[in-house]
């Protein structure tokens, strides 16, 4: 049986013409950069034929994509396999542009399409679109990225796009990872970077897909990507007095994005405040299984070793009750015991 292929549906909209939505400067570029990563054999490695037909960038006169175009893209994607059959292994959904949050739908973000206007908002509910493909088990893994605001000019009526098919029991095995640029009711931002305007979330997302720290097994998974997005976006800038914080309406499943990589490590500088016969390191994310760092050195008054990034550990004195808890969220960690 042939291996199932990966697919991507990518939309970037800059050219909004109708008030209250003004033009954007970086959404199409973000979409293009995401496509570049998708097509890169060292990146997403998704065949062009599974990306290009499902890509929509806004045209300069702001005539497309409208909401119908978006629905047509989703319909087209479904046509890749007969009803009830799997289309591919993994689906990437990437949407950048203006965004809204329909009333009361805390986990939803809508990508505003070019036909939106003051009295009648047109938007594609991103999570709903992804969920419909998940519930029918048309893919094994569905990743949704939305770089758009989640603030509504007007309070929007929620609506359901009835393109769902019969749900499939296999849906419970479908892995999901949904990441939004911002929380419910908040704005996403563009910022100049390297002389061009970029969505802050998209830029950090693509960086993370390329270089987020790996786990101890040399895998870059959605868990690492999530931590990377949270950490790097908080560093980026503040908006109206607060940090930028991405949201993850579905992030419980772990999806491996890349493997066979050298694990990214944190260097732990441990100062020993009392003499000790030795310390043990316990993995706080794996039932306190002992970890044996292979590179322990003992500078005067302490120890130095490395641990995989993005985890919680307990470091314990083997001969006493003394212990400390650490989180390897930085390259260098200074701790004392």
């Amino acid at each position, binding site marked *: 049986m042939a291996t199932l292929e990966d697919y991507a549906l990518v939309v970037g909209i800059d050219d909004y013409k109708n*008030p*209250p939505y*003004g033009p954007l400067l970086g959404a199409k570029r973000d979409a293009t950069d995401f496509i570049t990563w998708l097509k890169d054999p060292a990146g997403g490695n998704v065949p062009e034929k599974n990306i290009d037909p499902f890509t929509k960038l806004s045209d300069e006169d702001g005539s497309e994509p*409208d*909401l*119908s*175009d978006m*629905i*047509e893209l989703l*319909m087209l994607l479904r046509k890749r396999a007969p009803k009830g059959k799997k289309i591919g292994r993994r689906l990437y959904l990437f949407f950048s542009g203006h965004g*809204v949050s329909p*009333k*009361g739908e*805390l986990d939803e973000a809508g990508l505003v399409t070019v036909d939106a206007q*003051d*009295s*009648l908002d*047109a938007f594609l509910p991103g999570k709903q679109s992804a969920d419909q493909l998940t519930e029918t088990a048309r893919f094994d893994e569905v990743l949704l990225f939305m770089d758009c605001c989640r*603030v*509504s*000019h*007007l*309070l*929007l*009526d*929620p*609506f359901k796009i*009835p*393109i769902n098919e019969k749900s499939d029991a296999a849906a419970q095995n479908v892995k999901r990872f949904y990441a939004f640029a911002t*929380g*419910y*009711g*908040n704005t996403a931002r563009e910022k100049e970077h390297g002389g061009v305007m970029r969505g802050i979330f998209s830029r950090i997302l693509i960086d993370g897909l390329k270089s987020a720290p790996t786990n101890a097994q040399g895998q870059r998974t959605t*868990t690492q990507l*999530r*931590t990377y997005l949270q950490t790097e976006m908080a560093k980026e800038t*503040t*908006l*109206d*007095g*607060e*940090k*930028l914080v991405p949201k993850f309406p579905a*992030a419980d499943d772990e999806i491996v994005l890349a493997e066979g990589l050298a694990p990214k490590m944190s260097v732990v500088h441990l100062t020993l405040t009392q003499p000790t016969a030795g310390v043990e390191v316990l*993995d*706080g*994310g*794996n*039932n*306190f299984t002992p970890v044996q760092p292979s590179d322990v050195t003992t500078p005067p008054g302490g120890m130095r070793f490395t641990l995989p990034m*993005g*985890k*919680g*550990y*307990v470091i314990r004195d083997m001969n006493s*009750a003394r*212990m400390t*808890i650490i*989180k390897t*969220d930085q390259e260098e960690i200074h701790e004392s015991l």
Partner: protein
Amino acid sequence: MRASKTAAPRYRLNAHAPDEHTRIEVLDGNMRPVKLEHNLGDVSLQLPAGVYSVRFYQGQNFTEKLAALMPEMPVADVSINLSEEPDFATAAPVPNTTTTHEWQSDPARKLSLSVPKPPLPGHAGGSHFFLFLRNPFEAGVLPHGVTLHDLNGVEIFDLDQHGEGDPQAQWIGAHLDLDPGAYRLRLPPVRGSFSEQILFTVAGWQTQVFMMTAQGPERQQEITRISILMAKGGLGFDFDRPDSRLTEAALRALGSQENIPGAVRSEMLWAKFENPMLGIYAGLLHLRRARPDPHLTREVFNNLLRLVGPLPDVLAIGWALALRDENTRADASIMTALRNPAACAIPPMLRESWDHLLRASVDERELIPRGSISDRIGGRLVGGTPWVAWLGDLPAPRAAPALVETVAAKTSSAGGLWGILSGAWRLIAGATGAALLPKLAEKLSHHPEARFWLQTPRFTDLERRVAYWLQPALDPRFAGACEAYPEFARKLRSAANDRTTDEATLLAELNLGSTTALGAALGIYYKLFTNPVIPDATRLETFVTEESQQRTMLARLLRRLAKKPSHIHQVQMKRRLNLLEFIYLYYRGSPADGTKAELERLASRLCESGFVFDEKGSLTPADVAAQQSEVQQELIRELEAASMPRGFTLPQNWQARVLPTLQGYTKGELLPLLERKASTRPRQKAPPTSQGGIATAGQNLSHKESRQ
């Protein structure tokens, strides 16, 4: 036999925030979030052994603490003290935030304690209103255009002109003495439109409104945060007051519906005695719990009622409890206090309160009076704010469909507006008594031109929203997809048929009051089915019957006009009036107008709906007259041709009586009566009126002509 499994031991993690409204998040040792049932104030979890990160959030900022759960440490209590609380952004310059500066909080306090401006002309005063606008960001400016209006929209105060401030310190404010009551606060226009929201002042209290601008030069006109506090007269804005930061935290928690309080801390709710806004925020947040404490909520409600009276936000707390608690519903004194349409005619300040009142209005039909401000804000509410705010000026009260007015005139007011609207519907539905919403949904699905007509200016935005909610296939946003994928169009229709079209769902999803929604539904019915712009088949058939004067030949002649196109057409709809429709409109006027035909009115009505004359791109009364003249000539020719071989004689001067002038027209005399020659046998039967009927352009034209 199955091997018994030993469950992994679990340990207790208790996270405790300094206040009831700090949001808590817990991550496991792999930095994956742990699912929480509630997330405000206190969290207590049973978890497997591991390292956990506990994050205490205020706004988007957090303070993180680590904990380990293991056999040696089966319980971990994690908390932060006041000094560890994360800073967050607030509109009121309260302690320990990212946006508080002494150079703004000190002047705010001073101004709030100053002697208020004297009452405005016509105002006796009695309540104080303190308004403070600030930009806390470096090198910022203040937006212009903040004004205060009375309930009728009349401006009573302009902050730019009459406020006092310090441009260097980036603030402007005012302290006013106003009549106790409700006011409309208008905010500067953003993206072309200003927004408004309601504020209340109460005798003996100072209402304090703080507004904070957005960060960055491109967003100078935006006000991103608003805080409303209330202080007893003479106390002013007290920067050091211990509950000021708690109030801001509660407001932030209220801003996101995913925040649900944990353990009840009575000290927060008791604080309401001095701080009604905190009482309202805390009461509303408490009601998000799966099982709110009815005694506590009732106490909050009663105390708030005593402190500030029946503000809509206070009533909303009472209604939210009454909807969930049988004992409260059985308490006549509470229910009497809650049934207060006069108070609910003005919207509450908070969105959460608004949602509760809408839910209450499903059964309490008169709770939100028609034509009131609460009734008129539907469809224009601003998203992304905890406040009830609407875009643009308040729309004028909607005109009721004539049918509703007729029913209103004929019925007593005992049943109130709901009774009138229901009566109107019963009149339409007749003996079937079918529920309006499902019936309307079904009729919409069968109307071939509903999509087009709904887009004409005759329909309001609200009516369109209700129609699209009932029948999404009519929504122009889906037009392209429906055309490209008929399967999608089918699914849209079947989804609409499968969905619940009950009133409660409609109100909840569209955020409308009960009478507003029913009024809109009736409006659609009236405009589309009862009194459409173009006469329907039944009207045309009646017209033919009346104008053919029981002469089969005249009836046939008139019916034949239904197959002939006029010059008047609508491009988008690809709809061309046929000649029968045209002469109906010409002599009887549009059913939408319901009055005697007038050339100008007809041209204007058709123009409004996008009808034009051939390729002209417009339609004038002269065009309508020209079309009438053309039909007249055609009928003269046809009448002459038809009468000769059948042995009819035409009366003298008969041409002048074919489609007479509008002024000379009498109902039933559109065509001259034909006289049969003596040798011919008189007709016995009246022309059939039900055979085939008249086809309108949107219907199948395959009806059979009656053969004689």
